[in-house]
């Protein structure tokens, strides 16, 4: 895989620094050639063509671009793609199975955790990391974990309910 860049005609091809990286995304191994200045969010959206990861503010505020890097939520607009070399990326596309929604996705549907949906992928990825670490969070703990993710529609109430819904379902599944 390689990324196609605009040629502004201001340098020769040999002057463009390019690095080859290996990473996995949602379990699939990839090799990419990237310029060091390419952001991880752009590698995901333009390179791998997974556009579920949204770019909102592009200034490390809103959290819409949140993905997991080795299981940890990271704002993908604030990490260079080259830094993903050797690491595992998970995006919202990796949540659902072949035929069924992930409990988090189901929870957002059941509890109306979204309106426009723009912040939702980031919310879900941040919530996924929370539930992996803390399967039975309190409402406060959910709010705390999502405090780096902004939503302009819901007032957060239903997002919190959605995550708690998913937590309960995941616990019930685990108990099976």
């Amino acid at each position, binding site marked *: 895989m390689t990324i196609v*860049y605009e040629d502004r005609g201001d340098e020769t091809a040999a002057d*463009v*620094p390019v*690095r080859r990286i290996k990473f996995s995304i949602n379990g699939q191994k990839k090799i990419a050639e990237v*310029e*060091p*200045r*390419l*952001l991880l969010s*752009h590698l995901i959206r333009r390179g791998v063509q997974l556009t579920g990861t949204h770019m909102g503010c*592009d*200034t*490390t*505020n809103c*959290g819409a671009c*949140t993905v997991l890097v080795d299981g*940890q*939520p*990271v*704002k993908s*607009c*604030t*990490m*260079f793609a*080259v*830094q993903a*070399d050797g690491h595992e990326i998970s995006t919202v596309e990796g949540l659902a199975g072949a035929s069924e929604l992930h409990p988090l996705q189901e929870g957002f549907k059941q509890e109306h955790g979204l309106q426009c949906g723009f912040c939702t992928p980031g919310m879900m990825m*941040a919530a996924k990391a929370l539930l992996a670490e803390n399967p039975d969070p309190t409402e406060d703990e959910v709010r*705390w*974990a999502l*405090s*780096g*993710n902004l939503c302009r529609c819901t007032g957060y109430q239903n997002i919190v309910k959605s995550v708690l819904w998913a937590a309960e379902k995941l616990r019930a599944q685990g108990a099976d």
Partner: protein
Amino acid sequence: MYPSRFSYEAPRSLSEAISLLHDGGDDAKVLAGGQSLVPLMKLRFASPELVVDINNIPGLDYHREDADGTLRIGALCRHVHLERSDLLKSKQPVMAAAAPVIADPIVRNRGTLVGSLCHADPQGDWASVVTALGGHVVAQGPAGKRTIPMASFVTGPFQNALAHDEIAIEAVIPAPVGTRAGGYLKLERRVGDFATVGVAVAIETSGGAVTRAGIALTGVGGSTINAAEAASALVGTPLSAESIERAADLAAQAANPRTDHRGSAEYKRHMVRTFVVRILSRADGTAAERAA
């Protein structure tokens, strides 16, 4: 792609990183957590020609206490490690209070304390905390290591005392002589915003009296403010309503805030005073409880 073009190196050892910086001259930058550097590069406020990513260097992600009580925080210790640290909760009240209010939870997964000190943002929280605790930064360069007291590490807004081929490898908080108390209070409009006002107060008490004090202020001047006069007003006597009021007044005088969208200068100065009183009143309560 908004950052300017740069070359990227991800060395596996400190010596390799230092020689890359040495050869890179003034146009090289160290990348640790990247939560300040990457945004600056995207805005092209910073346009380094070489980025030396130190994330692959092993052995820098620690925070630990020496046998004598000295605390050391490595260059790759993330905010989240400090937020969850039992060591800080039991031994470092000021740092334990600050860690959960740095940026937001996702940024805390990557950002580092040492990186925040190097970034030297006047609104950076850790610089105030480390200043109040009388800490220092250990820098390593081609000629070896040197220690830079925090009070002289920040040389201006976004400027630090490192040479171009030096890496800040750890922050050090000296061991307390007495019982440590204090805290960090931050006023922010919402999680992740810069501090409207931040106040760090660190005291040590012994035999009922304050033996050492440090007060530092975030976001109320051109760089981190070391309110040394305010701190020394506390030393030598037990904490009392009078000494707390005096220190709070002096700290408010040391602040040099500007009116902006986060609040008026007058309001910010008032908040400095309020926060000093609040932190020290709680510390006083804690000390009283212990004595009882």
